[in-house]
C-alpha cells in the first residue's frame, strides 16, 4: 500500500526542521517504523542521558495514535519495565490533529515532569511518593548506567 501523503509530509518535516533534543528516523525498509532518540531534559534526573525509543505508525494512523515505547531502560513512574508509556495523548486523548512531533515533545515533557499520581510502574510511583529524593537519585543512576550517549 502506498504511504499516505500525511506520513510523507510529517517525515519530511521531522528531517528538515528537527526538534532540538529529539530525532526520529524512519527505517529504510519500513517507512512506518521510526528509530527515535530523546535527550533527557536539563534539570531533570534524566539530564545527560540519550534515550532510544521505537515508534510505529499503524495502518489507520492518524485515526489511531502511533505506537511507541522506550528501548532504553528508564526509571520513571509513568514508564514501565517494558518501556510502555502512560500518556493520555497516546491513548484516550489522541486526536488526528496531533502528530509525531507533538507526541515526542509530550514524552520529552513527561521526562521533565513525572506524574506519580497516574502511574504505570506502580513500584516506581510508590517510591516516588514515599521518598522523592531517593527515587530521583535512582533515576539519575539508571540514566548514568543505561542511557549513556
Amino acid at each position, binding site marked *: 500500500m502506498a504511504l499516505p501523503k500525511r506520513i510523507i509530509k*510529517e517525515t519530511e518535516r521531522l528531517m528538515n526542521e528537527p526538534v532540538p533534543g529529539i530525532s526520529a528516523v524512519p527505517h529504510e525498509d519500513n517507512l512506518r517504523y521510526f528509530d527515535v532518540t530523546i535527550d533527557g531534559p536539563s534539570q531533570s534526573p534524566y539530564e545527560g542521558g540519550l534515550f532510544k525509543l521505537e515508534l510505529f505508525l499503524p495502518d489507520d494512523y492518524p*485515526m*489511531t495514535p502511533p505506537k511507541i515505547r522506550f528501548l532504553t531502560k528508564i526509571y520513571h513512574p509513568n514508564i514501565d519495565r517494558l518501556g510502555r508509556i502512560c500518556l493520555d495523548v497516546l491513548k484516550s486523548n489522541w*486526536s*488526528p*490533529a496531533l502528530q509525531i512531533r507533538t507526541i515526542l515533545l509530550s514524552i520529552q515533557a513527561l521526562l521533565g515532569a513525572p506524574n506519580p499520581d497516574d502511574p504505570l510502574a506502580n513500584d516506581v510511583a510508590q517510591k516516588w511518593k514515599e521518598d522523592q529524593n531517593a527515587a530521583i537519585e535512582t533515576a539519575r543512576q539508571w540514566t548514568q548506567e543505561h542511557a549513556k550517549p
Partner: protein
Amino acid sequence: MNQYRQKYSLAQSGELAHRKSIPPSKLMVGHDFSQEFKDQPALDPHGDARQLVRLVQCRSCSKPLSAPVTLPCGHTTCRACLAPTRPRDNISYPNTPDRQYGITCKICDEEYPTVECSADVTLTKVMEVVKQTIARVQDTPEAPVCVLEEIPVSEDDVHDSNDEKELTSYQGHRKEFRGGRLHATFQMASDGELRYNSDVQYRASPSDAQIHAHLDAELFNGLREAAHSELDCLVCYNMMLDPTTLPCGHTFCRHCLVRVMDHSSICPICRAGIHIPPIAIQNYPSNGRLVALLKSLSPEHVQARVEALESEEDNSEGALSTPLFVCTLSLPNTPTFLHIFEPRYRLMMRRCMEGNRRFGMVMYNRSSAPQGDLGPTSFLQYGTMLEIINLELLPDGRSFVETRGVSRFRIKAYGQLDGYYVGNVERVDDVPIIEEEQLERQEVLEAQAWADAYVLENPQDPRTPENFPGLLSTDELFRRCIGFVEQMSQRSAPWLSSRIVNVYGPPPDNHKTFPFWFASVLPIAEEEKYRLLATTRVRERLLIVYSWIKRIEGQRWPSGNSCSIL
C-alpha cells in the same frame, strides 16, 4: 369506548402525518462533489478579477469578510453582519443554555443555535493572508491607472435591507487606482464602494491593460502561495477536499471527517463534541466559500484529489464485511448474552475475536415480510452491531459470549460465508440535533393546530396530551416515561426487579438512550421493540415508547371502556 379509541387513533395518525422529514435538497449543498468539479474552468486573474474578489466579499456588507462566521448551512458572513440572536421557542431537547438562542442565516433563512455559529478558523486565516498579500502591493505608483465603474445589478434574491426603490436609485461608484484589476477591485470593495452583486467595467488603454494583466497574474500567484498552507487539512495534510466546517468552526475534508467519526465524535482540533451522526456528515453542507476559493486558486489540485479518492472508494465499496448472527433482538447500549454451539457460529466468533470483535445481530423474519430491496429474506433488515466484551470458551468448543450493542444498521446487501450470513451494512443514526430541534418545533405546532381544529368540531373532547400525545414536548415525553418507570418500580413490577436492573442498569437519564433501555426490560413482543431500530430521531423513539406506556396503563386500570385500545 369506540369513541375514545377512534379519538386516540386519530391523534396518532395526526401525529404520523406530522412526521415530515427535511427535504434532502436542503441538506445537499455538498452532494455529488465530483460532478461539480468536472470541467470547472479556472478563473483568470485578469479577466475574472471581479468574480475573484466576490469570493471574499460579504453578502451583507459587501466588504471583504471580516471575522467570518460560517453557519452549518455552509453560508458565511462577517461576525458583525450576523442577524441578531433570538430565543428559540418550542424546543425542549437538548436543553442546554447555548442552544436556547438562535441566529438566522440571512442567505437561506435557516435558524441555528448560537453554539453552532462559531468563527470560521480557516477562512479567518485565509482572509488575513489575503489582506496582507494585497496590502504589500498597495503602493504601485509606477503602474498605469485602472478605471473602475460599478454596474449595479438588481437581483430578486438580494437579501439585504435594500428595497426596490433604493436599488433602482443606486448609482454605482467610479474609482481610479494605480495597479492591476485584482488589486483595484479588492480596494474598491474594502472602501465599501462595490456592492456584492454589482459588476465592474474596467477601462484602460490596451497597452496599460497588458501591464495590468501581468500585475494581476503576479498578485494571483502571491495569493495562491500565501493561502495554500492555510488550506491544508490537519488530518490528511493535503489540500482540503470538499471542505466541511464543523459547528465549532474547524474545517476538514469531508471524507477525513467521516473517518474521524468512525473513531470518535469530537473535533480533532478543539475536542468540541460533534452532534452530527456520521452518516449525516455525507450530506452535511460544504463550506461554500472555501469550496469556491479552492476551485479558483487550485482547480488542478482539486481535480487530482477527486480522482484519487474515487479510485480509492471503488475498491472498498459494497464489501460484505459484516458477519450476521440471525437470532434475537439486541438493542444499542444494552448487553446481549449468547450461548454459541452451532459450528458455523463458532467459526464466526473465532474470526470476530481475531478481527474487530464485532458482528451484526438480526432477528428472524417470522412473517416473511419483504425487507426493502432485499426481498423476503429469512432475517429482518435492521439490526444491531454487537461488540464482544467477553468470550468464555468451554472445553467442548461451545462458548458463552457477553456482548454489548454499539450501533444500529440496515443491511444493504448480503451473502453467505462458510454457512453464516455476511452483509454490507449501513449505519443507522439519529438525524443531526439541529434537525431534531426543528422537527420538534414543527410537530408540536402542527399538533396544536390539529388539536385545536379537532376540538372545535368535537367540543366534548378535552384538548389534553392524553388525547393528543403530539402536544407533548420531547422533554415532557421523556419525563412522563421516567415517571412511569418510577411508579412501576414503587409497585414492584417484576420487570424492574433487582435481577433485571443488575443486568441492564438503572434507567438512563438520557433522552436518546432511554427508549432502548426501556425496551430491553419491558416484557412486550420483540417485533414491537424492533420498531426502535429503524428510528432516526429521539422524539420518534420516545413517542413509540410512550404509546406502549399508554397501552399498559389502559390494560392495568380498565377504567370505563378504554380497556381494549389498540
